[in-house]
């Protein structure tokens, strides 16, 4: 079978393969917003030969793994157990997957690893960085997107009624699949495993016993396209860049792919997904930030830890804790009215249940906006990089995330997306650009965009602005001092409305009145730091944050 030509065909083929070998393939990651196209696709799910259960990211452990049915237990006065989805093999349809937490993904991964379930992940992410947890998508063989597919493209999906037979892959085909994965920069061995299963399912789909060359190509296109880190021509460019010894160390001789003649499989994979989809996926890969746990950012209310708050009515699940005393206090006044069997001393209804509530703090994100313009740029960037690494190394206990935006020439660039990983920081900050004009407004704008997306993810951002000069490039890229200053002030005011902690570090040799004024517009603190060292900078930031 030849590789699918359109996105709809791709999605349809993925679903048909899933119908043949659901547990071997793990599932399908479908990126699509709500709409008639997705609805038409979802309609085909009903024809699958396996039971389909709908789940959502907020699903409790009881619903997933089974447990006590509390309402029934209280009504009956004896323990009533409910079976969970984990005990019912089948295909799970996970809606709003981009909102799934790593914890939820970890639970689903257990089901996938056990080989009893397959998952259709419906990802409704709007932004490129809104993606399901990578630990989950890694375990799903295929990816398809329905965004931008016109209604006219909808066609009926014929769900096949075959089982994968004893199709065996010729040994040489397996080698080719593995080599293709290696030359696409796919390190995970799950990918070639999925590709072999997909090739066998494709053969079964056509009712053949033998896997053909076309099957292999299609399997590679379905499984590898969204995982590919780089394509061969990029690899050559990368090779030139990796003259530095450090990078060579990061990339062990695993990359034999460079030496291997290009396989037609690689070309097929490359053609399988539109370039913009690939770009977005690459972005999602790099910007995946560890969504860990509590830090010292903004207050958020929860049920598990932090400072206690008054309890409130709710339903018991494994994610929350009941407040027993409050529950009983609620139940007691009603005892005279409630009929109760002799052995029951206190009749408690579901409505009496009170849950504990706590207040705790979210993670903080330190955004460094660094002026990479002018002659002192290289030194300043290097020190900023050092400060970022020191802060990260110290950030374990503080649970801070760090991001770095550099602005120079005419625009700003997000060099380091929010991360807590020292490894990733080193990789991404290995080469730092410098020189050119000072587009302060653009830098602030990029930082503001980062702030907005970070707040959406529940992080509490803090801005650290590192500059020594005045803005000389306006937002539109023109070298107009007056307009640049006006734009910078405007952006600063936009920042001030977010009421974020802001620290302006003046790295110039003399104090700059303009910067002091800007920091007032930003509603932040101004700190002259004429000879910034990485150590001094990280200390200044740390002490400013303590206050």
């Amino acid at each position, binding site marked *: 079978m030849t590789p699918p030509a359109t996105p709809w065909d791709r999605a349809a083929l993925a679903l048909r393969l899933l119908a043949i070998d659901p547990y071997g393939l793990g599932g399908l990651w479908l990126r699509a917003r709500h709409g008639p196209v997705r609805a038409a696709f979802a309609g085909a799910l009903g024809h699958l030969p396996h039971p389909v259960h709908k789940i959502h990211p907020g699903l409790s452990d009881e619903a997933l793994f089974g447990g006590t049915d509390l309402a029934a237990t*209280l009504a009956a006065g004896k323990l009533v157990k409910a079976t969970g989805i984990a005990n019912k093999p089948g295909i799970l349809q996970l809606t709003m997957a981009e909102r799934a937490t790593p914890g939820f993904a970890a639970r689903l991964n257990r089901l996938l690893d056990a080989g009893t379930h397959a998952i259709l992940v419906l990802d409704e992410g709007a932004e490129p960085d809104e993606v399901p947890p990578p630990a989950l998508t890694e375990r799903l063989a295929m990816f398809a997107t329905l965004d931008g597919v016109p209604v006219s493209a909808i066609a009926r999906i014929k769900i096949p009624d075959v089982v994968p037979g004893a199709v065996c892959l010729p040994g040489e085909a397996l080698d080719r699949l593995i080599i293709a994965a290696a030359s696409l920069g796919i390190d995970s061995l799950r990918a070639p495993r999925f590709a072999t299963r997909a090739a066998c399912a494709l053969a079964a789909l056509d009712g053949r016993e033998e896997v053909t060359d076309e099957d292999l190509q299609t399997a590679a296109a379905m499984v590898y396209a969204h995982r590919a880190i780089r394509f061969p021509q990029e690899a050559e460019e990368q090779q030139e860049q990796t003259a530095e010894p450090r990078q060579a160390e990061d990339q062990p001789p695993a990359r034999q792919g460079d030496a291997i003649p290009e396989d037609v499989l690689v070309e097929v994979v490359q053609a399988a997904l539109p370039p913009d989809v690939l770009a977005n996926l690459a972005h999602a890969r790099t910007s995946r930030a560890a969504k860990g746990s509590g830090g010292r950012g903004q207050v958020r209310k929860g049920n598990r830890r932090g400072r206690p708050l008054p309890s409130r009515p709710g339903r018991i699940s494994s994610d929350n804790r009941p407040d027993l005393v409050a529950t009983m206090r609620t139940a007691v006044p009603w005892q005279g009215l409630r009929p109760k069997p002799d052995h029951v001393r206190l009749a408690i209804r579901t409505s009496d249940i009170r849950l504990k509530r706590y207040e705790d703090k979210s993670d903080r994100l330190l955004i460094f906006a660094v002026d990479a313009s002018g002659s002192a740029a290289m030194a300043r960037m290097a020190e900023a990089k050092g400060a970022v690494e020191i802060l990260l190394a110290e950030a374990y206990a503080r649970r801070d995330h760090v991001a770095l935006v550099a602005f120079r020439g005419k625009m700003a660039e997000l060099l380091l997306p929010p991360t807590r990983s020292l490894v990733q920081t080193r990789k991404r900050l290995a080469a730092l650009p410098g020189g050119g004009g000072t587009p302060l407004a653009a830098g602030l704008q990029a930082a503001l965009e980062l702030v907005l997306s970070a707040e959406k993810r529940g992080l509490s951002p803090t801005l650290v602005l590192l500059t020594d000069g005045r803005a000389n490039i306006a937002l539109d890229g023109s070298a107009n001092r007056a307009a640049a200053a006006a734009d910078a002030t405007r952006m600063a005011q936009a920042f001030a409305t977010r009421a974020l902690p802001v620290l302006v570090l003046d790295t110039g040799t003399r104090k700059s009145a303009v910067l002091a004024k800007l920091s007032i517009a930003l509603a932040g603190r101004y700190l002259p730091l004429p000879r910034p060292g990485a150590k001094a900078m990280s200390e200044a930031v740390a002490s400013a944050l303590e206050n």
Partner: protein
Amino acid sequence: MTQAFPFSAIVGQHEMKQAMVLTAIDPMIGGVLVFGDRGTGKSTAVRALAGLLPQIETVEGCPINAAVPEECPHWADVSPTRLVKRPTPVVDLPLGATEDRVIGALDIERALTRGEKAFEPGLLARANRGYLYIDEVNLLEDHIVDLLLDVAQSGENVVEREGLSIRHAARFVLVGSGNPEEGELRPQLLDRFGLSVEVTSPADIKDRVEVIKRRDAYERNTSTFMKRWRAADTRLRNRILKAREALTSVQTSDEVLAACATLCATVGADGLRGELTLLKAARAQAAFEGEPEIGVSHLKAVGGLALRHRLRRDPLDEAGSTVRIERTMEEVL
């Protein structure tokens, strides 16, 4: 999947397998941390370990897997104290598990329906005398990490909440895995793992092909595949059992002790835990090889495992810890 992938059938990944075998010989080494990219066989190895380990004898129905009836806690209410053999427990601690599930809590159902104050044991109780496996340990919530540190150190789980006052034994080997690109681990927890391993996908295409072939054979015909590898697994299990017996009789010379201390001091490992772990791991290695005495070769074999995660991290040093340790071992030993 009822049967885990056989341990001996894992291709390559010698360091990871070595680390797991060493903790199986001497659980006091204190846990393994496996860091590496996705799809490199981390979870497979841990689940395979469960199948490899020898069975333990426990009191039937005892929630903490006690070896003798006297050790079984009174709150468990185990009446016929029969001893049964069961596999070494390997308990999964999922991300986002609540404190209640980990340490145990008041049994809410019994409290609400029958008005009884009863303790519902958590994952730590189930992991006693076995393994506690945490996938993506670097994403684990702070308060759970604190809790685990406390229990791992004391070997005892203390529950003081909601009117309960219960303590029970919780001695387990912590196995954590994670991807360093997604976040670092706090040094306090890092130090608590005895050994650490960095895994990557096999570099050789032939190895990769072999991995896929074996996995495929396993999935297609599990029972035949298990039969084929049973002998190898049994051999390894017997070697582990023999090494366990030999462990106490392995001699340690003063020179080896001095070499341990010099090595740790030279690489700048914090605290004495590094030295102790290095010594224990070397002893287990010697026992595994059937040697009567710890030699320098054993120290070399486990030096990277035992020390690489204990170095004080210098954020501006580009070379990895492994390289630093290997360099130092060449110089010192």
